[in-house]
């Protein structure tokens, strides 16, 4: 095994593989920053190169290197402009953008990049360590377990509700309800599609999240008439501050990384879930949850870590079963075949060196991105001090191109505008937006896996031991956050009295 580990590293560092890695990184960086071309579409576009490259390690250097980077760079636009690079990378906005407004863009970016790097390495490490136990691990989580995990995720609504629990619950409920839109997989019934074809597949997360978060901020920017950053703070120091923050909250970063890996490794939960669960966890585990949404650096560290770590997690089912953990992995699966590999058990025996090479590619690509980003960071941060009226046209272009890329459909833009309006009013009347997104992300998953569990096991799944364990974790989470909430309120009262 050690031999394969070293051989994998040497193969990645050998020429021309390393050149392909650098080239892939460059392409990934461009695509990640520019709107309109998602990481997925780029991966599909670049797939034919695998025919020409032939050699497996070089091909993976190019494709996987590119893919690993698009995830990280998506955080950059989220933090600087409040526009998520991809629908799944939206949780970083919650605290990243408020930090930018406070003039702390450098710190937020430093934190996002460093936590991405640390968690990316963690993901790679876990991937390497879990190689012997991959199969039982994935098989352990059946549909009832996935359902309970979704329920556990939904309980995070409580801690994401901010000042008003009632508003948070309602927003989460509306999110759950909107998740019901689309063709019902059990009977084929069309639910709330209002005669349009666009809604058959349900609301897609990208346009909704872009509208909900980016549009109100752009309106706000126009109304304020200033630059995005309201205060000036020394920039270079800021980036280093963010790096230090990662290590100040090292265990939070590691825990959120674990969430990313775990969710990524389970086929069937999808990419949107891990970031929001990590954000929810960051809020929940904080001593002072009221700081979140106003520029708390932990709110950047959590999602940043989860987003990158999930790549390592996604590779687990891809390698062990030949079953893709995400849509990007499904495309990579095509690349496996083209270069003459059969993803599956062979990857753990005959081609173990290639599996480790993939781990190394993730590691090296993350280091390269972080390095390049740190080089350009100060220039990027300067944009946030440009007058808002000059930026707004470009930001709007970012927003609409980005959401249009979801389906190449005009309705994507309509959805963005509608949810932009909703987001604006939610801010105006102080309704929290994260519970809404959480409901939307988890609603479908919870519903489907409840159906499957009941269809497949009757009522007996309710007494599976793992279900009972997750159930108690869920109850404990709710109890803990209720306790903390009441203590905080008491604390606030006594403070007033004092």
């Amino acid at each position, binding site marked *: 095994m050690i031999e394969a580990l070293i051989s994998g590293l040497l193969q990645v560092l050998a020429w021309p593989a390393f050149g392909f890695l650098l080239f892939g990184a460059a392409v990934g960086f461009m695509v990640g920053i520019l709107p309109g071309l998602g990481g997925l579409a780029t991966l599909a576009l670049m797939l034919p190169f695998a025919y020409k490259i032939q050699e497996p390690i070089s091909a993976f250097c190019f494709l996987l290197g590119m893919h690993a980077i698009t995830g990280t760079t998506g955080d950059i636009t989220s933090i600087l402009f409040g526009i998520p690079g991809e629908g799944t990378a939206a949780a970083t906005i919650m605290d990243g953008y408020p930090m930018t407004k406070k003039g702390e863009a450098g710190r937020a970016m430093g934190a996002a990049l460093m936590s991405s790097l640390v968690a990316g390495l963690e993901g790679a490490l876990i991937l390497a360590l879990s190689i012997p136990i991959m199969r039982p691990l994935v098989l352990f989580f059946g549909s009832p377990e996935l359902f309970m995990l979704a329920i556990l995720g939904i309980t995070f609504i409580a801690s994401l509700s901010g000042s008003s629990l009632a508003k948070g619950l309602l927003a989460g409920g509306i999110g759950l309800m909107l998740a019901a839109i689309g063709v019902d997989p059990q009977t084929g019934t069309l639910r709330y599609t209002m005669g349009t074809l666009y809604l058959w597949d349900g609301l897609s997360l990208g346009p909704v999240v872009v509208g909900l978060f980016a549009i109100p901020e752009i309106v706000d920017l126009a109304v304020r008439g200033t630059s995005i950053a309201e205060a000036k703070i020394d920039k270079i120091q800021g980036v280093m501050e963010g790096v230090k923050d990662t290590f100040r909250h090292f265990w939070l970063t590691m825990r959120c990384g674990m969430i990313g890996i775990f969710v990524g490794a389970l086929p069937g939960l999808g990419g949107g879930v891990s970031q929001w669960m990590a954000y929810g966890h960051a809020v929940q585990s904080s001593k002072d949850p009221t700081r979140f949404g106003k520029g708390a650096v932990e709110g950047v560290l959590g999602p940043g870590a989860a987003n990158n770590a999930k790549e390592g997690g996604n590779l687990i089912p891809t390698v062990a079963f030949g079953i893709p953990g995400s849509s990007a992995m499904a495309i990579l699966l095509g690349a496996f075949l083209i270069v003459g590999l059969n993803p*599956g058990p062979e990857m753990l025996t005959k081609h173990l060196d290639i599996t480790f090479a993939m781990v190394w590619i993730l590691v090296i690509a993350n280091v390269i991105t972080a390095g390049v980003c740190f080089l350009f960071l100060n220039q990027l941060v300067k944009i946030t001090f440009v007058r808002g009226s000059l930026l707004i046209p470009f930001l709007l272009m970012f927003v609409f191109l980005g959401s249009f890329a979801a389906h190449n459909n005009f309705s994507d833009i309509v959805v963005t505008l509608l949810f932009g309006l909703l987001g604006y009013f939610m801010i105006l009347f102080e309704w929290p937006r994260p519970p809404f997104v959480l409901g939307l992300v988890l609603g479908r998953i919870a519903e489907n896996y409840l159906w499957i569990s009941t269809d497949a096991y009757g009522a007996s799944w309710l007494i599976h031991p793992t279900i009972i364990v997750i159930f108690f974790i869920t109850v404990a989470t709710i109890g803990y956050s209720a306790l903390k909430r009441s203590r905080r309120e008491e604390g606030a009262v006594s403070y007033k009295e004092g």
Partner: protein
Amino acid sequence: MKRKLVCIVLSLPLLLFLVWGTWTTPKVWAQEKPFYKGKTVRIIVCCTPGGFYDRWARLFARYLGRYIPGNPDFIVQNMPGAGSLIATNYVYKVAKPDGLTIVMPLGQIYLDQFIGTKQVRFDIRKFHWIGTQEKSHMVLYMRADAPYKTVEDILKAKERPKCGSSGTASAGHIVPKVLEEGLGAKFKIVSGYPGGSEIDVAVERGEVICRGMTIPPHFGREPFITWHKRGFDRHIIQTGRKRDSRAPDTPTIYELMDQYKTPEVNRRIVSVLTGSGELGRPFAVAPGVPPDRVRILRAAYAKALKDPQLLAEAKKGKMDVDPTPGKEVQALVNRVMNQPPEVVERVKKIMGR
């Protein structure tokens, strides 16, 4: 001010030249210049990037231009959603029928028209079909340790076997329904999995024990390659009219229907449900496209499918090649769609409408 003037003076002749060019081109050169010269052809794909539909479209996009007089450029545009209704409606109704837009719908697109889905804006029989490069017949696989070894066992069983499905339009739903309609077998369809891969994991775990899926991936990739080595699964039926060379011992539904003397109506229902297997992943252009351009596209498609480089790439990507020319696809579509009302009603019910 002076510079502005110079600019205008310089650009005027250029503008005139351009106007003259566009004015005279169609009249003077239309005869000599092939239509497709300097043009760009779009392939509108039903599905998201990276899947087999998308990969076939991108493969053809790199080869078709070589075989069309004038060597046009090709681009692929993904227009996913609503079981390819969005893409198909777009090409039928919105895009100009000039032969520069090709659609690649899902193989089972005819089912939506068949059951009278309101949002269908096309008549599938009026498309000019360019052809399909493959068949996508289906197979029902079953865990080998389950007590159902043949169709006979399922017919006799007291407890219905549980098969996984991702929705009423998926092979996971259709294949068990084919057995129910054709032979009277009974299944418990567990639906709601996000996709086929998740069902395969569920089968490994034992949550469900069977799944209907298309044949090429079942014999082309993991986890199935390992399954077949271990003898983990068994193949109950296949939906083609002939047995697939990779599953020579698995009976076809048509053989079994002969054996069980299935009535005509049920046979027709089965032929509608399994028609997508013959259609594979087809290409088509809108009805208004001039016949000579349809001919050019069909000829180019047939030639591209003989290109050794294309075939080599397809083989490497585990993409099966078993073509049906456009004219035959046309006949196939007409045959499948032409059914008595009772068949239509029954299929509607199966599809949940």
